[in-house]
């Protein structure tokens, strides 16, 4: 592997990893804010418990997103200095604004929320969480504006060989971003939905297995209490059942949201990056059919090896244009167009290094685009279907005793994560060989593009890149183990793991705390220096 390939692996690994934490942060943050709002308005103790329990898991995950996010901002300059020089005038602004207007808000107000349970009035404390959550949504917006400019450059003019921003409004309202932002947010909510559903199912199952909850003759649940374990009372049953239902509904709504916004994205992609669309389909020839199963050697980059076994006519046209008859161009028609527009060989320019003068392969790696596209839809759809089934199964207030169903629900948590990762891998790999894809719009800025081969830092050696790839991958692997272990520990502990006050004090003392009475929490009376302590 040379420097370019190592740098690409590093960016891929660190970004996909970062984006395991990010959707859970965005999705779960929103859900926890809604839960705390419900507690604030009703004073029902189960909402407080839900806020505390899911809030604890949210924080364990949040910190990993923060820690891995710094790498993202630094590695543009470190590993992709030519890219940074080329796009800096337009791409740096959304990154800087993300830090200044979004991440500052998120970090500061989350600190206030974590530590401010007693120092702040309940309404203000709740507002801090909402402000942090809204900050995370703005953060997503700015980052996607930056990414969308790489998919669909707008609002610039080429001056001295570099794109210079001339129309900020166009950059910040790039239609690619306007559909990608809701798509990503729904994807994040899908992750949170699956997370709630799986974990709540596990706890309902454990209550049944331990004989705390039983089922009456009519099949309805009879919630019970367990005397020996604090916090495992009837409210506990409400916590899990309500969490499960919220999770299932969120999962279904967000799948519908990703489908609708994804459809809009497909139509833009057909105009803006036709080769990506063709590669998503492994569609060699022009046609209207959506491939359900194509076989052959997708990786051979040779269309003669691919056979579409099952095809649904008209669907591809629908995805691309909204009708059933438009012929969507396949790879064989597109390749000559790309070669004519953007050249057959990389220029003889030193920034291409050893790749200068090489022939350009305009076809993305089709194994990845074809299967990435299908995994995204498949995982997303399966999770939504499972959520619907889960709502039906739990309609009488609890889950069956089946251990297998419980395992399915718990491992199902991974499906929306998989859908998110597959979607991003598809869209970024589908953009290749460009790092900034050309905008084919006749508006006249279609010469704004950059090949990935020209983007890597010329002064950085393959050895340095390898050192960082190995280091970061190893660090991330270790931390993933730690994070998952901690999550599992807190999940198994249940609500009490996030509310030690349920153990230390008689349950009713704390449960009577209403939002108006200054908030709940343990600790000695009058000691409000540390409502929460590291």
């Amino acid at each position: 592997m040379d420097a370019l390939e190592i740098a690409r692996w590093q960016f891929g690994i660190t970004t996909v990893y970062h984006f395991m934490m990010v959707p859970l942060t965005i999705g779960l943050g929103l859900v926890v804010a809604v839960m705390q709002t419900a507690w604030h308005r009703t004073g029902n103790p189960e909402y407080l418990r839900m806020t505390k329990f899911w809030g604890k898991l949210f924080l364990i995950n949040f910190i990993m997103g923060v820690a891995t996010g710094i790498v993202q901002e630094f590695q543009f300059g470190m590993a992709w200095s030519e890219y940074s020089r080329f796009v800096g005038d337009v791409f740096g602004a959304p990154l800087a604004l993300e830090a200044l207007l979004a991440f500052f808000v998120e970090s500061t107000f989350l600190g206030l929320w974590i530590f401010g349970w007693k120092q702040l009035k309940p309404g203000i404390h709740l507002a801090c969480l909402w402000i942090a959550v809204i900050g995370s949504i703005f953060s997503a917006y700015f980052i996607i504006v930056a990414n969308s400019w790489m998919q669909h450059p707008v609002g610039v003019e080429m001056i001295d060989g570099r794109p210079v921003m001339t129309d900020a409004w166009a950059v910040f309202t790039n239609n690619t971003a306007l559909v990608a932002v809701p798509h990503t947010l729904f994807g994040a909510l899908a992750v949170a939905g699956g997370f709630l559903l799986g974990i709540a199912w596990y706890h309902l199952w454990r209550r049944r297995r331990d004989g705390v909850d039983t089922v009456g003759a009519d099949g309805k649940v009879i919630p019970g209490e367990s005397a020996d374990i604090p916090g495992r009372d009837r409210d506990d049953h409400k916590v899990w059942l309500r969490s499960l239902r919220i999770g299932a509904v969120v999962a279904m709504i967000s799948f519908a949201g990703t489908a609708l916004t994804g459809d809009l994205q497909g139509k833009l992609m057909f105009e803006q990056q036709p080769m990506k669309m063709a590669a998503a389909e492994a569609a060699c020839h022009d046609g209207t059919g959506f491939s359900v199963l194509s076989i052959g050697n997708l990786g051979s980059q040779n269309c003669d090896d691919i056979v579409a076994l099952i095809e649904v006519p008209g669907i591809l046209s629908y995805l691309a244009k909204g009708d059933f008859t438009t012929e969507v161009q396949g790879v064989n028609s597109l390749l000559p167009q790309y070669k004519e527009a953007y050249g057959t060989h990389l220029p003889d320019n030193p920034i291409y290094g050893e790749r200068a003068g090489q022939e350009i392969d305009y076809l993305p790696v089709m194994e990845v685009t074809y299967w990435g596209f299908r995994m995204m839809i498949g995982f997303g759809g399966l999770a939504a279907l499972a959520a619907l089934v889960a709502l039906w199964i739990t309609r009488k207030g609890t889950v069956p005793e089946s251990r297998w169903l419980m395992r399915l629900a718990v491992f199902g948590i991974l499906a929306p994560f998989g859908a998110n990762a597959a979607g991003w891998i598809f869209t970024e790999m589908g953009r290749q060989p460009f790092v900034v894809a050309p905008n084919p719009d006749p508006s006249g800025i279609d010469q704004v593009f950059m090949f990935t081969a020209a983007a890597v830092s010329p002064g950085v050696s393959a050895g340095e890149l390898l050192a960082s790839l190995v280091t970061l991958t190893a660090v991330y692997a270790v931390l993933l183990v730690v994070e998952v272990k901690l999550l599992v520990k807190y999940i198994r502990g249940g609500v009490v793991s996030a509310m030690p006050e349920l153990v230390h004090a008689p349950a009713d003392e704390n449960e009577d705390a209403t939002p108006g009475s200054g908030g709940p929490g343990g600790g000695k009376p009058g000691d409000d220096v540390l409502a929460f302590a590291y």
Partner: protein
Amino acid sequence: MELLPTVWFIAIAVLWTGYLFLEGFDLGVGMLMKLFARNNTERRVLLNTIGPVWDGNEVWLLTAGGATFAAFPLWYASLFSALYLPLLVVLVALIFRAVAFEYRGKVDTDRWRARWDWAIALGSFFAAFGVGAALALTTTGLPLNANGDREGGPLAWFSGYAVLGGLAVVGFSLIHALAFLALKTDGDVRHRARTWFVRLLPVLLLPIAGWALSIQFLEGKPWTWALVLVAVAAAAAAWVWARRGAEGKAFSALGAFLALGSASIFAAVFPVVLPSTLNEAYDLTISNASSSDYTLGLMSIVAAFGLPLVIAYQAWTYWVFRRRVSAAHIPEAHSFLPAIAARAFTTKG
């Protein structure tokens, strides 16, 4: 002189100074976890002084980096790629440090806490050292060619200035943290922090003074020399106030020392943002490294209202958590539920 690039040079100087001022004490507190705290309770006192604020402080680094990317993309690209390995160390240090703050109390064993204490202390040390080295090198220069790329291999950045800058930020962070602890804690920690502060101030500020002075000898103008002198006076005032027990004044005076010292350095090197040690013609300056006026103008408008807002709500955070923390406030170890935990762990499923 070009107006907008100058404005953004100042803005980036302000962002770095803000970063060193705010994260300075929490990096220092991190290092003091191993150097100063005597037992677990004291370590938790230290941690909880920065608990609500460290993450917000760290965003100053991201904003400084992002603003450099947006306003001076060529500076950002050359500096970050030339310092590839040291910045990798900074990243790993910041990752472990951030995770350690959150995870340290999540398992109630000495071994677990000891590991994360090391992560906090070493993470803080390497982050401070690496950032200091990078900042010093952007003032003294790197072996850059005409394209702005580093010549001479992965370690070509190494020089005495890298070490001096690293020690400068480590030393400043430590003394700043002692001033902060004297201000934010009570009881034994408070008194010891003040004693340490008075004893160590001259030593710990030596490297940062050395960096500021060497820049003056290289590039200084009369008025930047004057800034250094005022900065030294501020440090002396901090020392005197600390001896008298005026902790708030001592902390503020040390902050003034940082602001003045940092201003003296940035002002002396202006308008060069990153000199090339190979050829003066390859120097990156505010003119040849900056973004277009359109981009800088847009960023100026946003920053003009965004940055004061950030300062306002961060100040409010410090106000909310203004009370001193002492050992008496630290709750019992976050014992994680003996009853249910035991049960949850022994029963499979």
